[in-house]
């Protein structure tokens, strides 16, 4: 099996902080790996190691078969990097930014111009192409930054939180773009804090926290393992709790939790909700609360790290029925 990207036991420390604490993962050629984790998990550090900007303190990594430390120059010929913060020269125009990279890569003036025009067009920046980047909106900067990482037609693309700070429309546009790159055969390593983004784009997901991989698998596997939504049911009569628990346990794929007055369970299939309602109705159980809410990333982490789910907050995506 030929892995496009392989990280083995990566360790990186900054003073007393251990940003990466033995991270392993692989990315198959032509697929998207979503590196999912909260703030400070080590996502950017992993990307920086894989793009030769940082040397790992231990472990090693190969990209396209080349070692990121020993063969850094070769790795750089394969990759395109879109960092967490747009890395474009604000005092130049969008076109000049792209031209600069083309020329640095050794293309002729004419080739560089052609590629710049092509990319500006592809990213909807033709009209803004001759304006200084400091006049661009956040979304335009992001797009230019992505375009800049594509000048060389890289076969591996690193995207570090590419949609953070974008409005929903710009976000879906970027998703479409990423998908079209992938269908063109590009291997993508994508970091994100959003479960739905990883779900929408990634073939495989690696969840990291505190510099360690805490889960990995396809989006479906992870969802099956975690439940993408949480069902929460509260009967009016406390004595009905065991009955509610058994019904929920039967219909949901996971054993329910009993906490205080409520029965909660992770569910993947939204159809569970009406099924539960019907069954409990038939049994004459009156409910004071019935809710299905999306698991937030926090809950995913909580369930992954085995700590009890936090009860105090209910998210805005909550759907209340009673």
């Amino acid at each position, binding site marked *: 099996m030929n892995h496009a990207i392989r990280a083995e036991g990566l360790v990186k420390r900054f003073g007393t902080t251990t940003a990466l604490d033995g991270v392993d993962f692989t990315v198959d050629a032509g697929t998207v790996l979503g590196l999912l984790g909260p703030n400070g998990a080590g996502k950017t550090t992993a990307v920086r190691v894989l793009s030769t900007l940082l040397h790992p303190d231990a472990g090693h990594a190969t990209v396209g*078969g080349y070692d990121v430390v020993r063969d850094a120059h070769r790795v750089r010929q394969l990759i395109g990097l879109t960092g967490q913060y747009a890395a*474009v020269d604000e005092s130049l125009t969008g076109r000049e930014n792209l031209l600069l990279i083309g020329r640095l890569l050794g293309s002729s003036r004419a080739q560089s111009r052609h590629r710049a025009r092509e990319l500006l067009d592809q990213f909807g920046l033709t009209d803004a192409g001759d304006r200084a980047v400091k006049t661009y909106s956040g979304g335009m900067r992001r797009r230019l930054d992505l375009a800049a990482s594509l000048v060389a037609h890289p076969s591996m693309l690193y995207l570090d939180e590419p949609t953070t700070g974008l409005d929903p429309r710009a976000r879906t546009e970027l998703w479409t773009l990423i998908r079209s790159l992938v269908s063109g055969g590009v291997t993508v390593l994508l970091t994100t804090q959003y479960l739905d983004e990883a779900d929408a784009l990634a073939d495989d997901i690696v969840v990291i926290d505190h510099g360690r991989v805490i889960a990995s698998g396809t989006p479906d596997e992870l969802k099956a393992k975690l439940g993408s939504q949480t069902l929460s049911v509260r009967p009016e009569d406390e004595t009905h709790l065991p009955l509610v628990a058994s019904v929920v346990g039967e219909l949901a794929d996971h054993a329910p939790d009993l906490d205080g007055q409520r029965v909660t369970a992770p569910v993947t299939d939204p159809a569970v909700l009406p099924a539960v309602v019907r069954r409990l109705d038939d049994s004459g159980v009156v409910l004071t609360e019935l809710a299905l809410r999306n698991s937030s990333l926090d809950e995913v982490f909580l369930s992954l790290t085995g700590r009890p789910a936090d009860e105090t907050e209910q998210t805005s995506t909550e759907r209340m029925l009673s």
Partner: protein
Amino acid sequence: MTTLTDTPPAGPALPARVSPLQGMRQSMTLAWRTVVQVRHNPWELGDFSIQPIMFVLLFTFMFGGAIMGDWQSYLTFMLPGMVVMNMLFVSLYVGQGLNTDLTKGVFDRLRSLPVARWAPLAGRILADQVKQAWSIVLVLGVGLILGFRIGTGLAGLLGAVALLLVFALAFSWVAVVVGLLAPDPERVQIYGMTALFPLTFVSNIFVPVQTLPGWLQGLVSVNPVSILADASRGLMVTGAQAGPIIATLIWAAAITTVFAPLSAWVFKRRV
């Protein structure tokens, strides 16, 4: 874990390193970028154009008479040193540009490209030499309009410019270190100015060293800025003197020897 070796792709092997020639071309491209930046922000050119013109005018007419009896003699005395002072201030732009690239992430992008490791820095310094040449011509031009006369001829003038550029190149490393240490571009200017004002004023640029108290004379004469000012005066006005020229070159070599490795070290710690 089994050692599955991922074989590099078939086909022509990718080159393992950048050739020096490619590195040079990349440096030129990055220098071009700095020149384009100036073209987009002509006020930046004003930054290092207006101030030296103002300084020449102020010193010549405000202090010239008081220091030397008449402003014409003072202009002849002070102008070569003014060129030196301006050169030092312009070299701060290397540090400022470098710091901007670091804080804006442009440096990361450049380092993720298959580009010679030294090209971003070399490109900066190269572009800075263009700014240096411009500022030297500007200060000399203003001087010539006011009545400054080259006493030595073209060879002397070119010699002076060459010496100034050599020293500027060496001093760029100091600016690089400041650029790497400062948290943001504004701070590069602040730190740089704070260091450069005493360095240039405690020198013989503006006043003849004999007018100073004895203890200060000693300090002023060892200041490399005085030595370079002396060398420039010689080359432009009174006739070249080997002493200060050689001393300037030794200083340039010493500064490079200390600050080039230092900047490499600071760089490793910063990124």
